[in-house]
């Protein structure tokens, strides 16, 4: 039997770009909001798809490794929320700044840290992005300040980074993220006040995934309109499952701040498939049906895929090829993360201070001393 070529698609068959209608954002103290149409090129679409798929598979791999007890401690997974970090990252520049809380793996990847370094950090190896010193909640890279474990504490930090942006005058902004649970922290309101007073170029972003650990938003907040909680700060409520909606809103917000108008607040309505962390099955406070519904109707990756295929920006086969490539990348990264050695014991004392001549650090008893090098 001879092989017959059944069909083939030439890449010239695809459209170079398409225009999409996106959901209008709810506005607070704003006359107009972001555009309700978004243009996406083929390259952009493929990039968003690949990035989101990588994050999805990376989080699922982390789930696997955690269950195998290769990852320990806390592990807060981001699957379901990929459109948020990808949409934000593509709307800003690499010279802008981002700070978030502990659900950080997606942002770390979006900000440029390779998957193998993220997974190696989760498994506590020396090849991790911070040499195994931080773990799941403390990942950093250039212009990305973590990775913060104390709920809400990152918000004043973000406003401080925005103050530095304004001080240096380089037209940069800082995206300061927090969750629906953190939104009730007092220090966030203190920060709103100072950011508005001093017109800091700070984009406050509330990733509302409907649950603060096991507490739904209705049980935690007297007002669940998180985009209005900034009061005197203008706000937008954005569909966080649509990467284009997030992108357009973030562009709008960043432009607002760069124009020197002061801070702005964005609420991204999103959803996490996993529980709060790996110790939380995530079904005691919500139904499996609810999770399934979101997966089938609003999954960010599926939404993007459907858009691209229906608008002739890519074929299903092409996207499947990307899936295969992503899986391979994740497997290799996981391989690295499980075989890379743990940091040497000498690392224990290092990096207590920056730019400091070496000194000695006390161990568990007076005879055990570690050298501390900056």
């Amino acid at each position, binding site marked *: 039997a001879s092989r017959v070529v059944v069909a083939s698609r030439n890449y010239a068959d695809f459209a170079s770009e398409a225009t999409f209608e996106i959901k209008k954002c709810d506005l607070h103290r704003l006359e107009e909001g972001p555009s309700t149409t978004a243009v996406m090129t083929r390259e952009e679409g493929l990039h968003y798809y690949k990035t989101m798929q990588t994050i999805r598979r990376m989080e699922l791999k982390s789930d696997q490794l955690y269950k195998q007890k290769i990852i320990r401690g806390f592990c807060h997974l981001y699957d379901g929320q990929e459109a948020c970090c990808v949409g934000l990252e593509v709307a800003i520049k690499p010279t802008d700044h981002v700070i978030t809380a502990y659900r950080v793996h997606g942002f770390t990847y979006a900000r440029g840290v390779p998957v193998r370094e993220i997974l190696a950090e989760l498994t506590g190896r020396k090849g991790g992005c911070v*040499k195994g010193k931080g773990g799941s909640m*403390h990942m*950093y890279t250039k212009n990305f*300040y973590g990775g913060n474990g*104390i709920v809400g504490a990152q918000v004043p930090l973000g*406003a401080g980074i925005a103050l530095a942006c304004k001080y240096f005058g380089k037209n940069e902004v800082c995206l300061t993220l927090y969750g629906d649970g953190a939104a009730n922290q007092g220090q966030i309101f*203190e920060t709103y006040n*100072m950011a508005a007073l001093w017109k800091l170029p700070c984009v406050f972003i509330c990733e509302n995934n409907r649950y603060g650990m096991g507490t739904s938003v209705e049980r935690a907040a007297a007002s669940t309109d998180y985009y209005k909680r900034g009061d005197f700060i203008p706000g937008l409520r954005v569909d966080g499952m649509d990467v284009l909606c997030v992108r357009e809103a973030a562009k709008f917000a960043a432009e607002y701040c760069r124009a020197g108008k002061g801070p702005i607040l964005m609420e991204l309505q999103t959803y996490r498939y996993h529980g709060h962390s790996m110790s939380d099955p995530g079904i005691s406070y919500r139904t499996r049906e609810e999770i399934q519904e979101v997966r089938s109707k609003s999954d960010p990756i599926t939404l993007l895929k459907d858009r691209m295929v229906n608008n002739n920006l890519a074929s299903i086969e092409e996207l499947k090829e990307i899936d295969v490539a992503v899986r391979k990348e994740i497997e290799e990264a996981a391989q690295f993360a499980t075989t890379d050695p743990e940091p040497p014991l000498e690392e224990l004392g290092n990096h207590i201070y920056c730019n400091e001549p070496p000194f000695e650090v006390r161990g568990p008893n007076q005879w055990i001393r570690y050298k501390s090098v900056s």
Partner: protein
Amino acid sequence: MTVRYQIVQRDDSLQSKSMRIQHRVTLTKGTRRRQALKTTGYRIFWGVGGKGFVPVKGGVRPRGREAAPGRVGGEVRCAEVRCGDSPPVPGVWGARRLRAVPPPCPAAGVSQVTVRDALNQALDEELERDERVFLLGEEVAQYDGAYKISRGLWKKYGDKRVIDTPISEMGFTGIAVGAAMAGLRPVCEFMTFNFSMQAIDQVINSAAKTCYMSAGSIAVPIVFRGPNGASAGVAAQHSQCFAAWYGHCPGLKVVSPWSSEDAKGLLKASIRDDNPVVMLENELLYGVPFEMSEQAQSKDFVVPIGKAKIERQGTHVTLVSHSRPVGHCLEAAAVLAKEGVECEVINLRTIRPMDIETVEASVVKTNHLVTVEGGWPQFGVGAEICARIMEGSAFNYLDAPAVRVTGADVPMPYAKILEDNCLPQVKDIIFAVKKALNI
């Protein structure tokens, strides 16, 4: 004829360094009596007839009516008597004289500088030296600082470099730490360290630990400063000492100055350090003048963090202290010297990293140790010193157990007699030394 004497009251908010005392005394001619006022170092201006006050040199007779400089509504401000001025001529004013005695001349270049002025100089010099340095806190700008430490700085540097914050410790401390992470060099003032407790999460979890958690990729070059410990009559919530609290945490540096030289040198070193530094000042020391050498007054004078200073050499006992109690130790040492006990007084200057080597070397020499601090005894600075001495080589040289002199183990009461007895006094230090020496 009425002769009015105007001696302007001491007013620290006035710009110039002259000490001004205001006291209106009305006398009738011929009595030549006046109150003996404690006016050492002050020149007295006096005038005739209630109009036209005249500056007079050395306090001799009024010269006639001339417009007095600095005259405000009939009052005349006095200028400081400087050393080298001629002393008042005795016998001119009669039985009791207002003495405007010039102070003795210090060595060349040495001046008397209060801790407040030393801190102010340090801030001024560092703000000028590095554009990334800025100051934020409550009342630091337009009010000139709650304790006037930042006097004149807002006028000189403006809103960008000296920032008044709302009363939001947790918020503005976090903002300061974030600014440090992004490349600025903030000096974050707490009106007192009691209020830093509201922001302590940002100091420890955000500032102290970040260099370690990020494996050195994010530096936090920030200084937290303000008055620490007991003041006078401010009661329990405003009198706590945080040396042990902050000294406990790796990743922080904690300094505690006593003299003006300490204050200026340590503040400059702290600002230049790329790590989070907690500087524990003392409100009661702000107005105290200390001698500062010419070298100490220069723009590049820094006191290294992590090095203690031996304030007084001695042979019989080592007194280790930090902040205000160092002064009490020196007073106790002076009293004990008369009884033949020579105390070596060590001013720690830095709580973390602590210079235990200096203390050890001293204990090896004197064989006796007394620690003195204002904070509570349990888990305090003295407890740490004693533990480290026990662990080190100096233990074998101790002839008696180390003794701690600390604040009383109670929240600070208000009534003066109670408050005075809650803090280590000179007599307590003397008693402790005698106990340690078994005399």
